[in-house]
């Protein structure tokens, strides 16, 4: 199944499915933080592994970021979710969670995990329900703290050549909080996804 292209109809459908999933995640985040989440428009792409950094359109290369990733799999669909958090966001995040002490690396990690649990969990659940599948999630893994994007991606090479990527740039209204959720599906998942989606498009 190499040389696949993502036709417009399929891309559009994934975007809409993601949009609904993102809405659920946004709702949970808004409830956790008692704030309003500006609904992002998900960006769907089919990318080569080497182009991954380009997918991260909302985070500039020189910015310092921290990231968590978490694998998921189910019904022959598999991939990884990557949550990339702009380090400049931690001050506001701490404020939103009513944390008052000094923001150490440890506190940042705690905040990062709280957010990733919600955004990754709810997004995957939302997608899975619409596709009528169930994903099991692996343990999350800290990719790194205080790195720039190229350092982050350099450290983590995968064997997958081509990936279906869904980028979801979250922002909170009135706060300097910026994070990017990236859902990456393996090339092997594409035929299954295509199949599932075709039922919905009928």
């Amino acid at each position: 199944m190499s040389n696949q292209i993502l036709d417009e109809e399929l891309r559009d459908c994934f975007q809409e499915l993601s949009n609904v999933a993102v809405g659920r995640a946004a709702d949970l985040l808004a409830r956790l933080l008692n704030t309003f989440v500006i609904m992002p428009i998900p960006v769907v792409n089919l990318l080569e592994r080497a182009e991954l950094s380009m997918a991260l359109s909302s985070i500039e290369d020189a910015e310092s970021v921290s990231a968590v990733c978490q694998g998921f799999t189910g019904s022959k669909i598999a991939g990884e979710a990557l949550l990339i958090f702009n380090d400049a966001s931690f001050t506001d995040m701490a404020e939103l969670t009513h944390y008052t002490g000094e923001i150490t690396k440890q506190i940042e990690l705690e905040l990062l995990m709280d957010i990733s649990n919600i955004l990754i969990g709810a997004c995957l659940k939302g997608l899975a329900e619409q596709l009528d599948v169930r994903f099991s999630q692996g343990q999350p893994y800290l990719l790194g703290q205080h790195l720039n994007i190229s350092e982050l991606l350099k450290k983590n090479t995968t064997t997958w050549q081509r990936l279906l990527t869904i980028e979801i740039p979250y922002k909170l209204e009135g706060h300097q909080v910026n994070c990017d959720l990236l859902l990456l599906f393996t090339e092997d998942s594409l035929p299954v996804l295509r199949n599932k989606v075709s039922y919905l498009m009928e």
Partner: protein
Amino acid sequence: MNQPHTEFSEFHWLVEVLQTVDIGIVVLDMEYNITAWNSFIENNSGVDSADALGRNIFDVFDDLSEQWFKHKAETVTQLRNRAFTTWEQRPYVFKFKNTRPVTGVTDYMYQNTTFIPVANSAGDVENLAIIVYDVTDTATSKIELGEVNDQLALMSRTDGLTQMLNRGYWEDLLAKEFLRQQRNPREHSLIMLDIDHFKNINDTYGHQVGDDVIRAVAKVILDNLRATDFSGRYGGEEFSLVLIDSDQQNSFQLAERLRKKIEQTAVPLPDGEVFVTVSLGVAGWKPEMSEYAQWIEQADQALYESKRNGRNRTSLAP
């Protein structure tokens, strides 16, 4: 075989599996009382399942942070969303002694955990399950690897002779600062500094003294910069400095201060001492610069100007 018997035997082997697996399972009710507890937890905590059931989790583990734990648990049960914790965030949730006398290198078991909301048949969340994974091996090897990597990273960032940043890393920082400038411009300046007639020193007194001179100049620079400024060893006897929130005029003053201090710094010789002078070029950041190399270039030209006008002086970029 009749139906109840089949159900019973199924229940029996399910429990058997839960008891045997090498992961911990704790189930709590909404008041944080223990409703289930498998062998893994029993064996590692030293508390029998019979003694644990019905007790409050915070009574059994008195060093478990109630505030932290309840925050996690409430998020999970209220939002009906799983939560994961990693050893990097919190080495352990439940404090278990490391049980390996030979291979154990840590005092406690490192843990990853998963918090899972458990709904009853009506769909209401009535229990919370916590799955505990022993990740001591992964954690210890990653910590050791991390320490080695930190050392390597530090080594690859600093110049061995002067303990200043090396050129590569200094340029990385400059590149980042330059990008920040383009978004949010402030008055920063760049100084290039070169030791005058350094070749003569090497030729006259030998490389050992040459190295001492470089170290002495670097020390004057490091001692006189603010914490926000960053300096690097740009080349053999050439140094580069970025001054944050310091316009060209202020930076000129600092450059002159450095020049005078270096002029007065004696570098000891086996029989006596030697003095050196330096030439400097100062360039403030300008909005029309499109890449950081142009900034270095301007400071370099000012430095060249100082050399041409007789050395031991500071020049400003036009």
